[in-house]
């Protein structure tokens, strides 16, 4: 938070767009998304379920299934390279070792017919040329670090023999194995209980302190975000609707969606009552409403929101951006309350 801003960004995503072919036509899952990750810092992407968080990170790392997915524009600069235009071979030198990824769906992301130990060890064998037994040993160490009990025995187990949370930790261990410069973790702790989650977050913080690793974390857990994020990006319907330093965004949310999110946090006082959810349903990417995609659910929507799509523009605060027509207008009292 108080660390000096590194001059050179570690990973700079600019105007990334991704589209999918479907039977019914093309849909744009990621729409001009930009964010910047700095060395040693943690960027948290929050956002609506289905807003393109996973797809955008997959696109950056070049593992989007294509077809049906297509990166239709943008850049992702890492160490002077544009990850999006890298050749397959060059990307292999980067992704997996220097940039690593934790997938959201741990069971299907693991190869069901290899032991977890082998799947981790493979990284050492391929990228470091370590011997089989050494690699296995280090795999066990990694499993141990992410808190798998009896790690040395369990390297020989198969993914289906693990619990949901353990699989997630296997994925994390795999991602951390080679000491990456950038870790992109897609909801890595959803299946972890709070103690293990704390342990994992602690581990990340430790590594970050040691190696200046940059972390991109996708999560729905605001508490986690609040605790570990340096910067926040909030997405809605494929777009970034708000970004900035954690304290600023959480302290003074500018976009009505962010505001709505913060209101939905369950709390002890409201036990058993209905939680205040944002009314309406998330939009269908195939048929986005005109103008601002959040408009139908927005308590502040007005005429301009129907006709004009709000662009991401600077907002009050240090390096803050928001995509709302109301940014340059005073918010209505209820909206500004929080």
């Amino acid at each position, binding site marked *: 938070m108080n660390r000096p801003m590194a001059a050179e960004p570690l990973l700079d995503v600019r105007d990334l767009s991704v589209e999918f072919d479907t*039977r*019914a036509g093309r849909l744009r899952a990621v729409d001009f998304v930009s964010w910047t990750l700095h060395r040693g810092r943690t960027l948290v992407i*929050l*956002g*609506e*379920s289905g807003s393109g*968080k996973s797809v955008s990170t997959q696109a950056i790392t070049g593992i989007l299934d294509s077809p049906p997915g297509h990166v239709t524009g943008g850049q992702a600069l890492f160490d002077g390279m544009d990850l999006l235009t890298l050749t397959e071979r060059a990307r292999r030198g980067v992704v997996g070792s220097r940039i690593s990824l934790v997938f*959201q*769906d*741990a*069971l*299907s992301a693991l190869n069901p017919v290899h*032991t977890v130990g082998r799947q981790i060890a493979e990284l050492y064998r391929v990228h470091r040329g370590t011997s089989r037994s050494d690699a296995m040993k280090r795999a066990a160490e990694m499993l141990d670090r992410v*808190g798998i*009990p*009896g790690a040395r*025995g369990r390297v*020989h*187990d198969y993914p289906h023999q693990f*619990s*949901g*949370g*353990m699989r*997630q*930790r296997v994925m994390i261990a795999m991602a951390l194995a080679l000491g990456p410069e950038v870790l992109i973790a*897609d909801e890595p702790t*959803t*299946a*972890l*209980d*709070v*103690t*293990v*989650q*704390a*342990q994992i977050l602690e581990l990340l913080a430790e590594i970050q302190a040691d190696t200046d690793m940059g972390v991109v974390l996708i999560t*729905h857990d*605001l*508490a*986690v975000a*609040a*605790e570990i994020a340096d910067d926040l990006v909030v997405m809605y319907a494929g777009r970034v609707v708000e970004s900035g330093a954690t*304290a600023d965004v*959480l*302290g003074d949310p500018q976009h009505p969606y962010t505001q709505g999110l*913060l209101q*939905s*946090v*369950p*709390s002890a006082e*409201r*036990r*058993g009552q*209905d*939680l205040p*959810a*944002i009314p309406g*349903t998330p939009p*269908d990417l*195939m048929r986005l409403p005109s103008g601002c995609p959040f408009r139908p659910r927005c308590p502040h929507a007005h005429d301009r929101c129907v006709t004009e799509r709000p662009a991401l523009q600077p907002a009050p605060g240090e390096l803050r951006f928001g995509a709302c027509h109301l940014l340059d207008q005073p918010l209505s009292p209820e909206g500004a309350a929080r």
Partner: protein
Amino acid sequence: MTDDVILRAEGLVKHYGGGPALPWRRGRGAAVVRAVDGVGLELRRGQALGIVGESGCGKSTLLRLLCALERPTDGRLLFEGEDVARLRGAALKRWRRRVQVVFQDPYASLNPRLRVGEIIGEAFDVHPDVVPRAGRRARIAELLELVGLDARHADRYPHQFSGGQRQRIGIARGLALGPDVLLCDEPVSALDLSVQAQVVNLLLKLRRELGLALVFVSHDLGVVRHVCDDVTVMYLGKVAEQAPVDALYAVPGHPYTEALLSAEPSLDRIRDPHAPRRTRIVLAGDPPSPSAPPPGCRFHTRCPRAQDLCRDTEPLLTVWGQRAGACHFTDAMLAGSVD
């Protein structure tokens, strides 16, 4: 009170027998994983029972036992007083309709070749009497909308959805038959707060209006507190503590619960982003392996309160009024709260 009990588990045990693929294969020989090791539960009509516990402590396995997808190594499962293991054929099918489950891994539990509408509609193929043929499409659309998906999504395949969307498909499927008991394994973990709020509200509403009983496995203590009446805390295949939600959150009756609660990420910084970062309490020591649980109290290896007694004598689950705990010191811990 007892006639109200709809689902009762008695001493459920599930061991996963080891044994490598071939005799000469390396690895854990015949090590047995004691995934669930003697768990008793009671679920009343309309009750919401939360299950929390360390990752890998056997929650999912317990749920699979509760919906009779796996045969317990030992113990019994009673539904309205009837042994579920005895149900066969049509009776079992009728029972299944009343007890539904939402799986933890949303993608793996969706057939990749079926469209979402078909996945949800499968419930109606299996139980054709639930919804008349003509009304099925509408019902599927309704279910999708209930969980915050677009009715038009019925024509898409699972892989075309995001993680949270898949999770909601699973919930919609669980609700399709209008069960009496819904076993949910982390049903909201991948949902953003707003959608999570919608789903939680939906579950609460079904509980209120239809008397749906819930078993709710979650790591999000906030959600558990919001949704559940009672909580069972599990540790390494066993019940550590059972208590009404408020009581448990107010005064934990087991050192593990205590640790769990203290590790809950704080929302302070959301409220006040400039508050200093809290130092997280990480449980000391390594979690023990379920294939070689420590003797005595299973938690003693990591317990701040552990004494010699804990090392040799396994504490039994003892009832304390509304609650029960399996610690030699539960009484001491509860001394303040229980009159």
